[in-house]
C-alpha cells in the first residue's frame, strides 16, 4: 500500500526492461525515494566505480506518498554516484513526472549498463520499452519533450530528459522534467548522458492506493490546513517565492558576491522578488507573470516569468519570448550575485538556457564566478575565453550560458565545474565549494550553521541537506543567532536527519516551513503498512545519513573532505553585520562528529552502525 510494490530494472547494455518486486524489508527501513534508492545503489555498485562508466547505476525513485492526494505529492529523485562530485548524489525534483511514474505503477526505475545507441525509455503503465532516440540526440530538453509527446501523439505524457550538456559531458548536467523542473545537482544528468539515455517518458493511469483511505484523506486535509494557515506556506511563498530571500540574505551580510570575494551585493534589490514584480519601463510589463504549483501542491512557490523582448539577450532570439520557469532564489543568486551581474533580464535568460539545455544554474553561475576571478587576476585571457569575462558583465553571462549548455568553446571548460577549472589553471583555492560541488546562496561566514551543513553534506556543498537558514535567519522552528556557532552542530544534525526522512516520503521539503515530522507521521501512517511515528521517521533519517556517509567513506572521502575553502575560514567577511567573521568550522566539526557517533576520522563507530541497524 502506498508503495506500488514493484520496480523496473532497465539494462541499457542489453536493451531489456524487467519488473521486480520491491524489497519491502528495505522499504520499511528506508521509507522510499532518497533512502530506499540509496540502499539499492549502495548494495549494487562498487563505491569506487567511475561515475561515468557503465558500471555506475542511476535510479529514478518515488516516495510512498508520491502520486497521492497529500499536498506536494509530486516529488521524485534521481540517485546515483555523482559525476560532479564522485560522492553519493540524490537530486530531487517536483513538477508532474514523479506523479506519472507512480501512477504507472512503479516505485522506482534502476538503469544499469550503457546503451550502444541513444535511446529513451517509454512507459505506459505496465508496458515499458526502450525506443530509438537518435532523432532527439543533439536537441534541447524543450525540443526533446515536445518531440516525444509528438511521437506518441499524446500531450499528457510526462517527460524527464537531458539537454545537449548531458550528452557532451558537462559535469553538472541536470535531469529536467516538465520543461523547467530539475533534478539539478551533482551531475545526475551527466550520468544519464553517459548511458546514452536521452529521456524517460511516462503515461500512468493506474492510481495509487493507500492503507486506510478515510484516515488518509483526513490526515492529508489536516496537513493542508496547517500549510494554508501558516503565514509562510499560506501567503509568503505563493506571493513572493523563494526570491524574497535576496534582500533578506543581503541585509544579514551573507549574500556571497563575486565568487565570495564580498558578502553583500550592491545590486541585490535589482534581482530579487521585488524586482521581478516591478513593472518595467521598457515594455510596461513585469518580469513575473504568475506563481505556479507542482503536482498536488497547495503552496505553489514556483515562478513563471517572461523576458523583456527588447532586451539584448532575446531581441534576436524569439524562441525565448515565451513565459517559462524561474527565477528561483538559488539560480538568481548564482547567475547574479556570484558573477556580480545585476541585470534581471539577463539572469532570466541565462536561467531559461539552463532549463533548456539541462545545466545546474547554481554550479554554472558559481563556476562562471570563479572563471571571472581568474580573468580579473589575469590568469585567463580573452584569447582563451573568447570574450571579456569581467565581474558584472551581463553579455558574458548570457553568452557563456549558451556555450556551456552545448559544451562548446570556453563553455566546455566552464562545464568542468569550478574545482577542475581552477585546478587546471593553478588556482584551486578559488573554487568555492565542498567535495567538488559549489556552494549555494548563503555565506558560511555570516551564517555559521550553514557552513557546517555545507562541510558535512553527503552530496557536496548544498543547502537542501540541512537548511539551517530556517532557524538561523527565519526563526523556524526557533530563532538562533547566525553569527554564533554554539549549538550549531546539534542544529545541523537535526535538520540533516529530518530532511533525509522528508526526502524519502514523496513530499516537498518546503512543507517543513510549516510542518514538523509530527505532521508527516499521521499522513505516512495512514498510507503505509506498519506504525509510523515522528520518532521512527527521525531514526530513518539518521540511518539514511549514515548509509550515505558509509558510501562516501568507501568511495575514498575522508574527514579532510569535510572542509571549507580557505576564503571562508581565513578571509573575514568585509561588510554588514558579519564583518570580521570567518566560519568557525574547526570548533563545530569535532562536536558534530561526536553527536553523530562517529570517530575523529569521521567514520561511524560500530556502536552507531548497530544502533541504526546498518
Amino acid at each position: 500500500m502506498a508503495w506500488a510494490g514493484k520496480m523496473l530494472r532497465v539494462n541499457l547494455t542489453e536493451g531489456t526492461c524487467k519488473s521486480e518486486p520491491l524489497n519491502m524489508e528495505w522499504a520499511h527501513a528506508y521509507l522510499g525515494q532518497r533512502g530506499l534508492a540509496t540502499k539499492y545503489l549502495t548494495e549494487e555498485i562498487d563505491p569506487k566505480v567511475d561515475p561515468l562508466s557503465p558500471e555506475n547505476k542511476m535510479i529514478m525513485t518515488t516516495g510512498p506518498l508520491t502520486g497521492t492526494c497529500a499536498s506536494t505529492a509530486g516529488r521524485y529523485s534521481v540517485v546515483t554516484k555523482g559525476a560532479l562530485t564522485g560522492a553519493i548524489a540524490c537530486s530531487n525534483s517536483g513538477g508532474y513526472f514523479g506523479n506519472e511514474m507512480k501512477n504507472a505503477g512503479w516505485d522506482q526505475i534502476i538503469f544499469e549498463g550503457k546503451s550502444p545507441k541513444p535511446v529513451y525509455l517509454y512507459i505506459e503503465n505496465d508496458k515499458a520499452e526502450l525506443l530509438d532516440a537518435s532523432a532527439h540526440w543533439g536537441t534541447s530538453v524543450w525540443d526533446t519533450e515536445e518531440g516525444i509527446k509528438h511521437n506518441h501523439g499524446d500531450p499528457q505524457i510526462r517527460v524527464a530528459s537531458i539537454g545537449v550538456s548531458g550528452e557532451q559531458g558537462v559535469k553538472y548536467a541536470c535531469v529536467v522534467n516538465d520543461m523547467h523542473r530539475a533534478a539539478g545537482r551533482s551531475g545526475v544528468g551527466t550520468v544519464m548522458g553517459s548511458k546514452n539515455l536521452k529521456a524517460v517518458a511516462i503515461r500512468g493511469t493506474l492510481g495509487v492506493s493507500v492503507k486506510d483511505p478515510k484516515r488518509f484523506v483526513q490526515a492529508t486535509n489536516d496537513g493542508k490546513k496547517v500549510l494554508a494557515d501558516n503565514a509562510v506556506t499560506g501567503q509568503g511563498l505563493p506571493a513572493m517565492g523563494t526570491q524574497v530571500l535576496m534582500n533578506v540574505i543581503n541585509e544579514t551580510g551573507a549574500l556571497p558576491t563575486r565568487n565570495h570575494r564580498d558578502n553583500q551585493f550592491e545590486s541585490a534589490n535589482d534581482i530579487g522578488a521585488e524586482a521581478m514584480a516591478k513593472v518595467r519601463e521598457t515594455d510596461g510589463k513585469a518580469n513575473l507573470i504568475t506563481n505556479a504549483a507542482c503536482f498536488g501542491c497547495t503552496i505553489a512557490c514556483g515562478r513563471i516569468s517572461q523576458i523583456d523582448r527588447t532586451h539584448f539577450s532575446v531581441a534576436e532570439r524569439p524562441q525565448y519570448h515565451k513565459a517559462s520557469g524561474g527565477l528561483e532564489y538559488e539560480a538568481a543568486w548564482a547567475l547574479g550575485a556570484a558573477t556580480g551581474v545585476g541585470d534581471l533580464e539577463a539572469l532570466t535568460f541565462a536561467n531559461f538556457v539552463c532549463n533548456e539545455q539541462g545545466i545546474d544554474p547554481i554550479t554554472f553561475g558559481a563556476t562562471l564566478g570563479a572563471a571571472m576571478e581568474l580573468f580579473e587576476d589575469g590568469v585567463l585571457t580573452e584569447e582563451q575565453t573568447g570574450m571579456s569575462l569581467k565581474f558584472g558583465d551581463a553579455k558574458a553571462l548570457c553568452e557563456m550560458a549558451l556555450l556551456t549548455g552545448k559544451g562548446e568553446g570556453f563553455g566546455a571548460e566552464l562545464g568542468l565545474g569550478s574545482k577542475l577549472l581552477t585546478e587546471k589553471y593553478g588556482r584551486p583555492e578559488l573554487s568555492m565549494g565542498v567535495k567538488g560541488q559549489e556552494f549555494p546562496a548563503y555565506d558560511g561566514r555570516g551564517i555559521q550553521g550553514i557552513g557546517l551543513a555545507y562541510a558535512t553534506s553527503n552530496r557536496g556543498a548544498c543547502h537542501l541537506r540541512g537548511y539551517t537558514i530556517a532557524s538561523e535567519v527565519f526563526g523556524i522552528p526557533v530563532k538562533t543567532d547566525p553569527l554564533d556557532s554554539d549549538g550549531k552542530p546539534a542544529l545541523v544534525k537535526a535538520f540533516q536527519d529530518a530532511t533525509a526522512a522528508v526526502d524519502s516520503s514523496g513530499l516537498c521539503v518546503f512543507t517543513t516551513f510549516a510542518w514538523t515530522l509530527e505532521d508527516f507521521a499521521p499522513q505516512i501512517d495512514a498510507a503505509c503498512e506498519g506504525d509510523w511515528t515522528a520518532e521512527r521517521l527521525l531514526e530513518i533519517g539518521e540511518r539514511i545519513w549514515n548509509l550515505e556517509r558509509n558510501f562516501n567513506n568507501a568511495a575514498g572521502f575522508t574527514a579532510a573532505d569535510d572542509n571549507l575553502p580557505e576564503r571562508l575560514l581565513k578571509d573575514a567577511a568585509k561588510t554588514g553585520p558579519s564583518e570580521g567573521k570567518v566560519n568557525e568550522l574547526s570548533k563545530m566539526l569535532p562536536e558534530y562528529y561526536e553527536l553523530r557517533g562517529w570517530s575523529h576520522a569521521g567514520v561511524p563507530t560500530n556502536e552507531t552502525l548497530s544502533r541504526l541497524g546498518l
Partner: protein
Amino acid sequence: MQIILKLYAGLTPFLPAGAQNNQIAIEVDEGTTINAVLDAHNCPRKLCHLVMHNGFHIPPGERDARVLREGDALAAWPPIAGG
C-alpha cells in the same frame, strides 16, 4: 536625524512616496525606537515578522526598547522563507 527605512515584500506598500529600491532616507527624532518608526508608517505589527537593525535580527520583545541612531538601517519583512 536621518535613518534608512527598508520595507520589503508585502510591506512594500507602506513605504512613503519617493522610496526607491525598497528604501528611503527618513527624518526621525533622537531616541526614536524601532516600533515607533514602523507604527508611524502604519506597518501592521503582525506583518512585521522579520525586523533587522543594521542587519541584526531584533525579536518582537525588543522593538519597543531598541533606539535608532543617526545613519542606522531599519529593515522589515512579513513572514517569509525560501531556499
